[in-house]
């Protein structure tokens, strides 16, 4: 037991230093967040050390202060005719629109697949056909069919988010405890009530997990989506900067995407914790 000393045990070090003994159970212990902070600090420090040593040319890896300076500059100033917040907003709009569409389509369709085996047999090949394809592979088709407008960009991200949401929902629905369903039936539940009061809440933890995974997949498609004749967006910003070897803008874009994606992920985790506090508990 590394925790607090009990009243039965003398605390020699506190007597030596004259500091009051720590109250029971209050001794400082590093938490998960402390370790995470340490990891990030280590990464930043290595980055700084590596660039400050002059071993790597700024063209390949700009120093952190250069990226930070670029960040300050682009808050108001523009790169490729848009400020950083404008690029971010353009990407966020696409992401959120695609997410909304994927949730609106994916959850009901996932429920249908989970409830009706026939729907699963019919749709499973379609989903499994397109799911492993790299978005860049079917990007040309989407451009040919839907043009180079906003719809094609959102569609590409939507497809990336849809598969995880669909699969997680179908699996969540199909794996709701049969005993729970039988108990509800014996309490007089109709088929609709069973779905509404037992199956859906039971599948909710998995549905939210599907949305979390989907959102990650969506972000990873963002750059591909913004290859389609975009004039704004973080993916577009990174690609344009890459063409002119403006490495600090590339790194800045990567960091902004990572931070925004992480913030959304944290929000979804909070939501999951609030909506489904029983998740992960023995029940």
């Amino acid at each position, binding site marked *: 037991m590394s925790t607090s000393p009990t009243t039965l045990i003398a605390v020699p070090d506190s007597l030596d230093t004259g500091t009051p003994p720590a109250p029971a159970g209050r001794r400082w212990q590093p938490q998960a967040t402390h370790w995470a902070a340490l990891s990030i600090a280590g990464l930043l420090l290595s980055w700084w050390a590596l660039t400050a040593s002059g071993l790597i040319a700024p063209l390949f890896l700009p120093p952190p202060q250069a990226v930070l300076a670029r960040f300050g500059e682009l808050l108001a100033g523009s790169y490729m005719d848009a400020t950083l917040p404008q690029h971010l907003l353009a990407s966020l709009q696409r992401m959120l629109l695609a997410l909304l569409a994927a949730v609106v389509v994916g959850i009901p369709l996932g429920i249908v697949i989970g409830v009706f085996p026939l729907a699963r047999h019919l749709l499973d090949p379609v989903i499994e056909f397109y799911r492993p394809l790299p978005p860049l592979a079917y990007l040309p088709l989407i451009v040919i069919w839907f043009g180079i407008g906003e719809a094609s960009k959102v569609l590409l991200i939507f497809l990336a988010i849809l598969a995880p949401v669909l699969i997680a929902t179908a699996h969540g629905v199909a794996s709701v405890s049969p*005993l729970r369903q*039988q*108990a509800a039936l014996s309490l007089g539940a109709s088929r609709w009530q069973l779905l509404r009061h037992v199956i859906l*809440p039971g599948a*909710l933890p998995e549905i939210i997990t599907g949305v979390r995974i989907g959102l990650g997949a969506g972000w990873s498609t963002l750059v591909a989506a913004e290859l389609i004749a975009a004039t704004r967006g973080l993916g577009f910003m990174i690609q344009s900067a890459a063409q002119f070897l403006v490495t600090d803008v590339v790194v800045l874009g990567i960091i902004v995407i990572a931070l925004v994606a992480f913030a959304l992920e944290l929000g979804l985790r909070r939501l999951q914790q609030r909506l489904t506090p029983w998740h992960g*508990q023995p029940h």
Partner: protein
Amino acid sequence: MSLLQVDKLGVTYPGQSQPALHQVSLSLARDELLVALGPSGCGKSTLLGVLAGFIAPSQGRVLFAGQPVTAPGVERAVVFQHDALLPWLNVHDNVAFGLKLQGADAAARERIVADTLRLVGLADVATKRTWQLSGGMRQRVGIARALASRSQVLLLDEPFGALDAFTREQMQQLLLRVWQQSQRGVFLITHDIEEALFLATELVLMSPGPGRIVQRLRPTFNQRYRAGEDVRAIKSDPAFIALRESLLHSLFRQGHEEAA
């Protein structure tokens, strides 16, 4: 008059040559506590599934109040060993769940739920989530939920099987109290011989291969408990022990014949 009537019931699962249940007949009246005792594979869970309306009989029939049982119904509420409560609802809402599904009037519902929570000793934890409770408390919620619904028969599927010995004994006494006060017929399956002997007004011993009834008893220990005798005194009574050993012997003999 019997509420549930089972006549020459047989169940054979698709693709299986041996029936899971063979020629099972029994009846359950409103004031009875019928216990089916047997080892795993004896068909007792299948029997409960048929009574609940989850499994269709292959032969014979099951009648509730004279009508054939073909589907789950509110008059036959089921309590499972675990995993059947709704963790997104608190204790009160779990108990109110059946009445809510049935569209009962809110005031009547609240009265019934409050009475039921008091009966099973859950009034103090009404606002807790089910996953915050111990195993024994959770089984109380399951029983209360079945009671609060408009059930006339409770079907209990090894309700105390996952509990520790101490809690199990408390729950057995709770069940007798609830059964006595609520005026429902109770059908309970278990593999615990002492539990079966202590609770049953009628006991059927079942055996596998094919699942069937091999012995019928009418133990009196339930009445002795209700007459005020101490539970430990009953369970250590030579008559109780003799019957327990005799049932154990029958079970082993059945198992032996099985192996031969």
